[in-house]
């Protein structure tokens, strides 16, 4: 494992916006427990603006840190603004992630998009978006040999 920087550690040790939300306006669940990464995002939306956001994450330190940071980054933003958030933005806000952890930031981006999609469906009276636990585990393939085991 490459080492995490201070910001990542900070976000992991004291994450913001943790926990379930009662009666959310939208919920997105992405990732795959097989891959060791599941992220669930809850939204409360007022006037097209994300008034509150929560996450629940099953995953490594980077997954938790990116969940916290991504939710912080979109809190108070409009839906349109939130949809512009990319995994790169999240990784940058965290001062960078080890290469093999980049996929975690992708998960945060996707989680927020899924929650927004769910919010929109609900508004249109469609049934809520089901959790997507069958996602293909997407990740940067580490360069040969970057992966070492004791």
């Amino acid at each position, binding site marked *: *494992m*490459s080492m*995490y920087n201070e910001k990542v*550690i900070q976000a*992991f*040790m004291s*994450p913001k916006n*943790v*926990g*379930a939300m009662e009666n959310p306006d939208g919920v997105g*669940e992405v990732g795959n*427990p*097989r*891959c*060791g*990464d*599941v*992220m*669930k995002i809850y939204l409360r939306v007022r006037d097209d603006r994300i008034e509150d956001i929560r*996450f*629940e*994450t*099953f*995953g*490594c*330190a*980077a*997954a*938790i840190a990116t969940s916290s940071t991504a939710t912080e980054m979109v809190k108070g933003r409009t839906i349109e603004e939130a949809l512009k958030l990319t995994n790169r933005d999240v990784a940058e806000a965290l001062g960078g992630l*080890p*290469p*093999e*952890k980049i*996929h975690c930031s992708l998960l945060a981006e996707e989680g927020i998009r899924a929650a927004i999609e769910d919010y929109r469906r609900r508004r249109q009276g469609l049934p809520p978006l089901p959790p997507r636990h069958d996602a293909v*585990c997407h*990740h940067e393939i*580490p360069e040969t040999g*970057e*992966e*070492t*085991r*004791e």
Partner: protein
Amino acid sequence: MRRIYMDHSATTCVDPSVLQKMLPFFSEKYGNPNSVHAWGREVRTAIDEARASVARLLNAEPREILFTGGGSEADNLAIKGVAESLSGKGRHVITSAIEHHAVLDTVKWLGKAGFDVTVLPVDSEGRVRVEDFRAAIRPDTILATVMYANNEVGTVQPIRELGEICREKGILFHTDAVQAAGHLPLDVRDLPVDLLTMAAHKMYGPKGVGALYVRKGVRIAPLVHGGGQEFGLRSGTENTAGIVGFGAAAELAARRIANGEIDKERRLRDRLIDGVLSRIEDVLLTGHRTERLPFHASFCIRYIEGEAMLLRLDFAGIGASSGSACTSGSLEPSYVLLAMGLDHATAHGSLRLTLGKDTTEEDIDTILETLPPIVGNLRAMSPFKKNA
């Protein structure tokens, strides 16, 4: 904050008494043991003594011990060495699904080089079934390699039974005893194994030196060619200080085993296992309850992921490990846990706590205080289950 190292399966510290014995061999007794002059001769004597000490730990003869550059190299040497030397006789090799990569990847490499490979499954406690093993043997089988004890889940294999089958069928038997050597009594006069791997750094010796026991009469080909050191089977100027350290570590281990310190370790281990199982819900012990390394406790903590736990423990001063995917940069959880039939999500929550000779009851109690709130906290974040 007292920091508590609980990762002795990964590596151990060099015991100060071992380091003391090594020290003269860096800047004072620095001769090349292959040299004729006095500088060389004094070092040759020290290597001979270390070889005798390691041999004694196994009840082997000094001539049966080869020093290598580590446990992985010794595993590779054993497997490739037998394969090269016996390829005329047969090209089938048997191993288990939960071997260390140093064995598994070597056997797979043989598979690409024209050998047939059988990888045996294990039961839910990580043990190879003796019937499976017997059934896998073919007329062209030349070698079986099954580890003495597993590094991730601590399970000890039925090595005697497997070895006896090999004897009966006339095939060579190698066991990777990197986790067991120095921690369990091993006697190669009594145990039907032909080759056995050890690593000094798992038994309070230095890193970078391993040993392979090769039973008298068993012929293997070398992996590293050159000056013909180590009876022609591992060329290269000897790692004098490392070898001397291995010798000292072997003596220390023999004393610890003779003094019954294993029992002390086992009691602390059980205190830890019982404590974790009773204080945390939805936890399972991985590996066998009793047929396991005396210093080894391993679990799967459901609904949370291993690396996150490790880092929280680390910040609380406790060094632990996990077969978790994330520690290796791969997304697959431990192949060992999967081979034991665990589902992926559970396997991702693996936690290994391995005790050392200096672990105290207070250390165990500290861990038992520290771990539950960390688990609770991470579970509170988990979409799967809360308020554990």
